[in-house]
């Protein structure tokens, strides 16, 4: 019988080896995948039971965790939620967080690699681990001014610091109150969330970085920059000046926004076209430059790629393979050119910064619970996009545009503002998209600003950039310059 018994012993041993293997597989090799599964309530509850770090703007918390007496131990509260919602996002009890709550979840919940030693020490000392605080670049004065200036319009205002890339204000309207999505009641959260998803004006969308709009005339900055950098054109390069222009290989007709010619005379110049924001000379320039040169410049500015600030920014786009007619239309920001407000703010900021693009950034530093900095974000130069000369020329033309051209409503007494307006068509009968992008002071740029107004600002096809968007930029710039 002992021979058989030995065999049975081997079988028993194998059964236990199988159990050792299976527990190892589940607990070690699959544990990361299982922890990342969005049905795993343990992971979510864990992120609540730590005291999540605060999100700060100008040293004041805009999101913080307050101890409460329930399963989740802490309630996340958002102060001035409507104003800061595009920045903070929210963390619900039953789903994925958004905004900085999502982008820096590891740091905020204290589970990032940088906090590893804190985790170990809290394991030893028995203290509850705490998350790190996130100090944003947001300037509450700029944010509030941008919010007030945008008023009832649906759209976005972005203010950045050209020399550093720091984002000082990021407003998106319609907005929502993140507090309503942070309640500890799954059913209530679901109800609120569904209502917000279906609400008019898409309040959950952060327009500053995640909405793609036809840029219209503000895209002319990119095209003119490409022309000047090519070496074949100067601001004084001339183009025929008809009142109508037939697109190449097409029966479609393009007119200038006023309907007439671009200034008086048989010919017009690039400088005049930018000053008065004419379409026909830009179309002619676009055809001569070709789509490759425009795309190359657009991509240098950041088009056609996503980036992270660390919120993830939707890629603005310039078409991959336009025909001649589309190239002509793209030269004044129509056809399938699309841009986010942040992308246009980057174009202005780069021109303001002498042609060097600074990486846009929303976070200054990450602070450990004892307020020692865990990580500091220094300004990073992404690339030289334009020569200093081209940047200076562009600045001059944009300053003229505000002083005496199509962007006159952004004028501020005693300060030179550089700027460009845009009035983009959507469909034949759809309301326009209105833009302003620029910076001030023109001789020593401190602030770059981009304003986006959706749905024609309620005026359908009668509103235009200088009428509605430029005054908003003016109001915000005044507020921050007078600070």
């Amino acid at each position, binding site marked *: 019988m002992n021979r058989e*018994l030995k065999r049975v012993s081997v079988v028993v041993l194998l*059964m236990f080896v199988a159990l050792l293997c299976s527990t190892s597989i*589940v607990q070690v090799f699959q544990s990361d995948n299982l922890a990342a599964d969005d049905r795993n309530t343990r992971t979510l509850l864990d992120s609540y039971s730590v005291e999540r770090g605060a999100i700060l703007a100008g040293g004041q918390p805009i999101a913080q965790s307050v101890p409460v007496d329930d399963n989740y131990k802490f309630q996340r509260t958002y102060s001035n939620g409507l104003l800061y919602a595009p920045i903070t996002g929210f963390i619900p009890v039953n789903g994925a967080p958004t905004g900085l709550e999502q982008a820096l979840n590891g740091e905020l919940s204290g589970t990032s690699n940088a906090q590893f030693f804190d985790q170990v020490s809290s394991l030893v000392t028995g203290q509850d681990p705490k998350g790190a605080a996130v100090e944003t670049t947001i300037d509450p004065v700029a944010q509030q001014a941008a919010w007030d200036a945008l008023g009832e319009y649906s759209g976005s205002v972005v203010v950045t610091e050209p020399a550093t890339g720091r984002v000082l204000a990021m407003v998106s309207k319609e907005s929502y109150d993140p507090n309503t999505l942070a309640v500890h009641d799954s059913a209530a959260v679901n109800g609120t969330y569904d209502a917000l998803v279906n609400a008019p004006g898409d309040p959950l969308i952060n327009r500053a970085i995640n909405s793609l709009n036809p840029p219209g005339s503000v895209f002319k900055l990119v095209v003119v920059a490409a022309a000047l950098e090519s070496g074949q054109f100067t601001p004084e390069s001339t183009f025929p000046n008809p009142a109508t222009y037939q697109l190449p290989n097409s029966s479609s007709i393009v007119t200038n926004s006023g309907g007439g010619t671009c200034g008086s005379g048989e010919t017009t110049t690039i400088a005049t076209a930018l000053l008065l924001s004419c379409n026909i000379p830009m179309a002619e320039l676009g055809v001569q430059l070709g789509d490759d040169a425009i795309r190359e410049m657009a991509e240098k500015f950041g088009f056609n790629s996503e980036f992270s600030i660390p919120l993830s920014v939707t890629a603005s786009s310039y078409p991959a393979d336009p025909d001649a007619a589309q190239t002509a239309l793209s030269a004044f920001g129509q056809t399938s050119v699309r841009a986010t407000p942040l992308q246009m703010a980057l174009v202005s900021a780069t021109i303001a910064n002498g042609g060097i693009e600074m990486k846009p950034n929303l976070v200054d530093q990450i602070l450990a619970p004892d307020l020692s900095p865990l990580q500091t974000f220094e300004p990073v130069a992404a690339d030289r996009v334009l020569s200093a000369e081209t940047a200076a020329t562009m600045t001059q033309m944009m300053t003229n545009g505000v002083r005496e051209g199509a962007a006159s409503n952004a004028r501020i007494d005693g300060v030179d503002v550089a700027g460009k307006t845009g009035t983009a068509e959507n469909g034949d009968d759809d309301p326009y998209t209105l833009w302003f992008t620029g910076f001030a002071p023109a001789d020593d740029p401190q602030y770059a600003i981009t304003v986006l107004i959706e749905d024609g600002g309620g005026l359908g096809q009668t509103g235009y950039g200088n009428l509605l968007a430029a005054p908003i930029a003016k109001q915000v710039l005044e507020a921050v310059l007078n600070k």
Partner: protein
Amino acid sequence: MPRQSNPAVDAREAAPKTGKIRRLHLPQKLRNLELFLLTIACGVNLGAVVLVQLGALGLIDTTLVLLGASLSGLVFALHFVLRIVAREADPFLLPIATLLNGIGIAMIYRIDIANNESGWASAAVRQTVWSGLAIACAIAVILIIRNHRVLFRYTYVAGFVGVALLLLPLVPGLGREVSGARVWIGFGDFATFQPGEIAKIALAVFFAGYLVRNRDSLSMVGRKFLGMRFPRLRDLGPILVVWALSMSVIIFQRDLGTALLYFGLFLVMLYLATARLSWVLMGMSLFLGGALIASQTLDYVNGRFTNWLDALNPAVYEADGGSYQLVQGLFGLAKGGLIGTGLGQGRPELTPVPQSDYIIASLGEELGLAGLFAILALYLLFVARGFRIGFAGQDDFGKLLGVGLSFVVALQCFIVIGGVTRVIPLTGLTTPFLAAGGSSLVANWIIVGLLLRLSDTVRNQPRLVV
């Protein structure tokens, strides 16, 4: 090894009676080792309960500590009974069972805390009381059964009792259905009991006795085919009866795990007794065939297979009776990782029935892979000590019974833990000693008592000197 012609001969009668002189000269080495290990086990158990309290409550509550202390007292009483009536019993069995039992109580207590239950509603209090009863049963077994060969006389009685217990839950008015399986009996609203747990002991006794009596006709006669000797048709009787019994458990009691347990036990004992692989192959194909047909025709069996193979599929996860529980258990285990969250620090209560079927996932979450390895090692050691009886035993009935009883513990571990960790489809069985459940505790402590008795007899027998 020469087979003993008459297993009913009491070998102890032949053993030299050295009486008091021997006691004086040979200190009870085994019992002293047992006492030492038992002290450690009780210390670990006390530590576990205190850690649970500190982890989950942040304070020390003496109620359960006192209950645990009285339980320890009972275990030490068992130890002293062994010093008198089974001096040569295996010194590892009792400490291992004590340790597993205690860790189980600590974890059940931890889940009570999470669910805010106390007093008689607390599963941990009930588990402690059941443990006391179970240990008392083990003491009774050791005191009453002074020689395991008494059981040989009651082979057929044991067989009848086993089958009767197994079928008891099907009696109208007595049977209770809990989460789909009809394996419980109850009187009124309380005192529910799972008779199948006790039935496994009765069946092991029956199988051992029956096989020792009949193995010659089972193993010697038959026709050779493909190099294996297959039995005569009329000798197929017993395997068909046990197979039919298992299948009826699957169909009428809706309990896959129990059926697998009994059938596996029977096959292993049959193989040990007859040394015929053909029996095992035939039995396995019968069972697999039956299970396959069941998986096609019975919804609940089919569901178990789907849950097993495709657990993380959202459709399976959300289905009624789907893999929700299995996946929650996996999440818990994953949360535990290598070293666990620490007792009282995890969230085992998120998994359904975390204190019984899923106690291993709860332990894995709070003690980690390290803790589970330790627990598996304890089980393996327990089973190995049982198998030693088989290797060293002189009489075939004792050998078969010892191995059968330890194998049933091993197989039960494999079915439950393998189900939780997706080695095999999940079936509802209790984890021996750990899981909440009185019947399981009583049955397993009776197994401890029988194994202790068997191991004592084995050592007291005159050795065959080679």
